[in-house]
């Protein structure tokens, strides 16, 4: 396959960036999208040019490090797929592909396709945990959890923290990310005790970091590589209202 790429190039956080044209040759359908970029980068290095910087690590769709917008869609055209798990058989020979970083006010660009997502860590720091110390906890089977609840908690807990939901949202909202953690913990008996306080501090932290609010576009759900549902945003809202009334 031969492809034409338009890739966002930006030297640093304070520099301006632009789309740069690159040709990719000898690409095979078995390559992942990142392996295609590896080929382009090898070529750039051999020509004495700077390779394209992009975040990646596990390359199996779970670490949440990769963060590219492909043809306008965070993580590209395939549903429930991270960039590293997107394979070139999803593209046609001769295609033109636009590659940009995740864009949001809360995610400043560091270089090329790499953005700073530490704002998400700070939302978790605000209260995305159960306040338990190591040791001194009861036997694991002391508190039973209905299978349905454990499954629902797991549906929410699958979030990989990539930030695609933010990049997809017209408001740059981190509501799905925050809702996933709030719902995961609030669904379990162990997490119920701090649920009211948690939802308040995490929501506050989200706003402080410059993320927008939810406008019910549902773009986040469409972009989420783990298929996390917007019903959790409804759960977050419910938890938030309950906390306000309490």
């Amino acid at each position, binding site marked *: 396959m031969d492809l034409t790429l338009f890739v966002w190039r930006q030297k640093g956080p304070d520099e301006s960036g632009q789309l740069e044209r690159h040709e990719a040759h000898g690409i095979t359908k078995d390559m992942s999208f990142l392996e295609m970029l590896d080929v382009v980068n090898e070529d750039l290095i051999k020509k004495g040019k700077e390779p394209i910087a992009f975040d990646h690590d596990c390359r199996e769709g779970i670490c949440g490090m990769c963060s590219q917008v492909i043809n306008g869609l965070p993580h590209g055209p395939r549903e429930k797929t991270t960039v590293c798990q997107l394979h070139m058989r999803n593209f046609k020979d001769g295609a033109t592909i636009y590659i940009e970083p995740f864009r949001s006010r809360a995610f400043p660009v560091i270089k090329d396709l790499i953005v700073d997502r530490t704002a998400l860590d700070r939302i978790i720091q605000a209260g995305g945990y159960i306040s338990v110390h190591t040791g001194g*906890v009861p036997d694991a089977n002391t508190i039973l959890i209905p299978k349905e609840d454990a499954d629902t908690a797991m549906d929410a*807990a699958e979030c990989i923290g990539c930030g695609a939901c933010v990049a997809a949202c017209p408001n740059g909202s981190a509501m799905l990310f925050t809702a996933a953690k709030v719902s995961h913990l609030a669904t379990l008996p162990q997490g119920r005790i701090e649920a009211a306080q948690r939802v308040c501090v995490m929501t506050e932290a989200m706003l402080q970091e410059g993320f927008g609010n939810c406008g019910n576009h549902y773009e986040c759900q469409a972009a989420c590589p783990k298929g996390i549902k917007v019903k959790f945003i409804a759960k977050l809202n419910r938890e938030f209202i309950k906390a306000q009334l309490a």
Partner: protein
Amino acid sequence: MIDGKCPAGPLSEKWDKRKQELRLVSPANKRKYRIIVVGAGLAGASAAATLGELGYNVDSFCFQDSPRRGHAISAQGGINATRNYPNDGDSIYRLFYDTIKGGDFRSREANVYRLAQVSGSIIDQCVAQGIPFARDYAGYLDNRSFGGAQVSRTFYARGQTGQQLLLGAYSALMRQVRAGSVKLWPRTDMLDLVIVDGEAKGITVRDLVTGQIRCHSADAVCLCTGGYANLFHLSTNSMGSSVTAAYRAYKKGAFFANPCFTQIHPTCIPVSGDHQSKLTLMSESLRNDGRVWTPMSKGDNRPPYEIPESERDYFLERRYPAYGNLAPRDVSSRAIKDVCDEGGGVGPGGRGVYLDLSDAIKKLGKEKIGERYGNLFEMYERITGENAYKQPMRVYPAPHYTMGGLWVDYDLQSNIPGLFVLGEANFSDHGANRLGASSLMQTLADGYFIVPYTIADYLANTAYGKVSPEHPEFARSLQDTEGVTKRLLTINGRRTVNDFHRELGRIMWDNVGMARSKESLNKALGIIPALRTEFWEDVRVPGSGAELNQELEKAGRVADFLEFAELMAQDALHRGESCGGHFRVEHQTPDGEAKRNDLNFCYVAAWEFKGAGKEPALHKEPLIFENVQLSTRSYK
């Protein structure tokens, strides 16, 4: 001769005894000590969080953009613990024995017993943190089976157990960041260990965003920097996983133990071409319900579902009737390699066998199987374009885990006082082969329940804040590190870093991989130095050091692999026996199984760096078995 300092006395009382002996640091004094924790995978995050909870000041470093991304996140199948909830005969002793036997009698009894003892507490802790483990309809925790065991002791969260455990440790860590006891240093790479008066007192790092190289001092250092399977270029490890932190500690005097003990995982998606950057594991848990087979007649090109039952060779079930498809990893990998070497493999190049879940799908239904392994089937489909519900997966072994690592004593302290090594980065618990679902157990045992106790014993005897980054040792380390970086940037040769890595990987896979011989090892030892010389003359690292430069990061890691590869081959050559993942073709039984030599090799080989270009010195720690009988491992 080196001493692992295992406590005397009955096996089951050793850890309690040691805990009684360990000195404590009072709560008022804890806040005066500073501890560096490098790496934020399961071992690093759990240790940093727990040390923070105890009141120490912790600096937590990782090269990723967030501590939520350590490679432990990729672990799929589960975590072992001896709770005996299924009432199928599990016990602390049985987990201990399975692990010792699984490791082919090359690990320390005392360490492994302690691991089994604390395993239950890990599950309790994780449930309290809110980890949504799989449950049955009555609300109790569910278990599954894993290789090398005949009981069901594996706890799991769908096919993402590692992710859930890591996010649990990460949330505990974030809580401590909030509390002010832990400071995070993401996108920071450790490049050197700083030793002052023989003790570990700090590290030199590179800020991966600004390129700044700087030093951090502390009262103790914990390395939780994972394994070195990426030495093979293609492995199941994350792209950033490397030997660098451990290797640079080795160059500063820390002993490296059993570097040749590497694990090749039997069920990974086969290589599809030269462009490949990593290999993807298909969890061992699939072997609970899956059956491994190849066509009986070689070169049978029919699609798998057209091959009748009578013409299939379920070779694991045939060779190992007692354990069948749940034979341990090293044994299964070699069996798959044998079948493919004899021309019985399937798929491109004959490098693959079928992992078939169709019987289970028929019996339990697609939905139930989807619930257990859905994410794995999806992953397989994305990578290969094939639907595993309709046709069996093709799998082939791939480098996955490294049992070798920095040498540590019973307290997980290396031979350098103040340097503790946790998780995959140390060598301690898995001997010559790790059992599935045991790495998550070991990392969390080290981080939550062992080092928080043992590190206090070291600190109690050390004045806090003894050194600051103004000490001349830091200046020297800084200068050396900057020197290496500058050198890499000025070579400006013709070959890319990846190119060298790929070539090294091929050399290691062919000669120091699943089957090793005196001849192949000597061959590797002959080629590696030449490749290393070429690297330092002809590598091209574009850009500068004063910016985010991913090629420079990679170049440093590959440079270390090029040195470490030689140590690994040397260790493999010196160990004239086959055990676990280390298979020397000269040492095998008539039916092709590993043949141990307990008379001459029942020891840990700990290597000491003696200077560039010099032979490393071998130190031996004899392995003494007081409680188990050394036997030939049999899974038949």
